[in-house]
């Protein structure tokens, strides 16, 4: 299903042998790896065996909540680390404890996180694991039942957000509707598009394509591009409702 037409520049996710280079091809286990999309601004985490194993755990409907939180947090940390790599640095020389000179770099500019409520808030811990006292703004966007369109209900952002790099957090990028609206909010506060990094765990090819075309300078970092969307706009095979699984608000 969801084999995208070639002219969209999307290559569907497919089974492949994966593993490190020193392992023979027939010794590498088969697993479904992320699809590909032809946008320079979209960065998919390297499809390593370990990442696939983490995704396998959080996709599994039998995974308990504690494990879901722990293993999704590990992926989120990897996403944050990858995102931070896109921030600029400047040369910085220091003296080591052994008295030698080390030509290093230091981070330039200020950052902040912005989570799209509520699922995006589940990514805040992972962000804090990497950036201790980072400021975190929030945006609440919900689907309007009358129009079926996303609607902005609330936002609270750092006053100087226009001077900061923004890590926008939302674990699932299905249609890209909420994320687009969040970006519009950020832009209206004076944040330049190229200073926004959108981090998510699983994206649909449709949502990504829509989003990346709309914001050509905005960078997206995702762990996996899935098969597609079903008729309810759920990502398939996906992992269910991330927020519900993380916060334990499933009714069963």
């Amino acid at each position, binding site marked *: 299903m969801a084999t995208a037409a070639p002219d969209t520049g999307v290559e569907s996710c497919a089974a492949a042998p994966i593993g*490190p280079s020193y392992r023979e091809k027939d010794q590498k*286990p*088969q697993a479904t790896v992320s699809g590909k999309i032809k946008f320079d601004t979209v960065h998919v985490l390297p499809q390593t*065996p370990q990442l*696939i194993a983490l995704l396998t755990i959080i996709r599994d409907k039998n995974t308990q909540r504690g494990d879901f939180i722990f293993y999704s947090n590990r992926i989120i940390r990897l996403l944050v680390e990858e995102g931070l790599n896109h921030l600029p640095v400047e040369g910085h020389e220091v003296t080591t404890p052994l008295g030698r000179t080390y030509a*290093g770099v230091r981070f330039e500019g200020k950052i902040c996180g912005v989570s799209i409520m509520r699922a995006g808030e589940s990514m805040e811990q992972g962000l804090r694991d990497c950036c201790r006292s980072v400021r975190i703004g929030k945006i609440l966007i919900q689907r309007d039942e009358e129009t079926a369109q996303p609607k902005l209900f609330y936002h609270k952002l750092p006053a100087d957000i226009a001077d900061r790099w923004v890590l926008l957090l939302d674990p699932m990028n299905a249609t890209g509707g909420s994320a687009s609206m969040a970006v519009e909010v950020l832009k209206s506060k004076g944040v330049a598009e190229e200073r926004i990094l959108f981090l998510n765990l699983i994206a649909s090819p449709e949502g990504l394509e829509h989003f990346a075309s709309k914001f050509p300078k905005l960078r997206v970092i995702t762990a996996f591009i899935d098969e597609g969307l079903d008729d309810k706009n759920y990502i398939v*095979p*996906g992992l269910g409702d991330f927020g519900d699984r993380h916060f334990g608000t499933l009714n069963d």
Partner: protein
Amino acid sequence: MSEVRSLGYSPPWHDTHIIGIAGSSGSGKTSVAAELVRMLNLPWVVVLSMDSFYKELTPDQSKLAFQNNYDFDSPDAIDFDILVDRLRDLKAGKKAEIPIYSFEKHQRVPGKTTTIYSCHVLILEGIFALYDQRVLDILDMKIFVDTDSDICLARRLARDVKHRGRDVRGALQQWHRFVKPNFELYVRPQMKNADIAIPRGIDNITAINMVVKHIQRALNAKSEAHLKKIAELGQQVLEKPLTDNITILEQTSQLRGIHTILQDRKTSREDFIFYFDRLASLLVEKAMDRMTFTSHEVLTPLNLPYKGLRCASAICGVIVLRSGGVFEVGLKRVVPDCKIGRLLLQSNIRTGEPELHHLKVPPNLSNHQVLLLDPQIASGAAALMAVRVLKDHGVEEGNIVFLTYMATKVGLGRLNAVFPEMKIVVAGIEVDWTLRWIDEKYFGC
């Protein structure tokens, strides 16, 4: 991988120096052994008593034993086959499980053993330590303690009555019936197998001093050979390219930024710990990519299949103390329920030779994929030893991932050449020699 020929490495406990001490019951063998241990004052001197190798008795023999009528002082009472087997393992630097013998029950304690591993000097003491030719072939030094038989009898009586709960009559009966005739028949003739006989036993300070000097010379020679071998390895590996079993983290801007903070002597400990833990988690994540995985299909909450992977076996972290302790937080962030083994290696201040002081690993370590953690590889000598310890505990080389923060080229090369199947993950390479300082800054002492 097949064209990669591994270079040899022998730990300093390979070719263990084994000393046999024989002599009559009550001659003071145990005291002489204890005095040698005291004078050598090294943690790697182990005394092995031949009492551990008594044969298991049949019910009939057991009955005789309880009536003081079983001949424990004959060579037939000793299980030389097991003794020789264990001595050969120890001589080869391997781990040996020593049976535990219960004098109350005249049986081996079932399912229990004492583990001996990595001793540099082993002292085998027992009345028949110089009896079996196979044992004699293994021994590096053969000592016979030659004490006057009156003194032997007096000591034995005192010990049997005081510590072994026997009455004087029973003890004397044993002496006359078994000990004395066997001494003449089997024990005393061993003297001709000895390199050195020590008259008066423990009281003969001059003789014991000579023995100690001899052992020290042998140990120094071994230590020099070990260090020389490691130095030679360094020369050989410098020309060789590193194989792709070595992963150096991609030097991204963030990683370089973290390096800079960690390398800056002005960085506060609070910041140092935060950034080191962050880097440690990244390193462990990278190391986990080097584990073996198998296909695993799951159903998502939408009841759709996803063909994924899972780790092929349990993970065990082994921390090379003290420095390796800095990885513990990072390790637990990635594998929270990871079993953790520890080994303490210390460099000898005088020679720089690494020494194994402590070792505690899970019993079924060989069923695990092992993450070996040490933040700095300088000469590689400590790392070589740590890997060797894992291999001696049955871990396959291909199931070991060595994780380090910084390493010298020569240290990495040595490890790679000696253990070509092992994976190494390193956060950065230092070109030249490096002193250990990471753990000092992390722990603040």
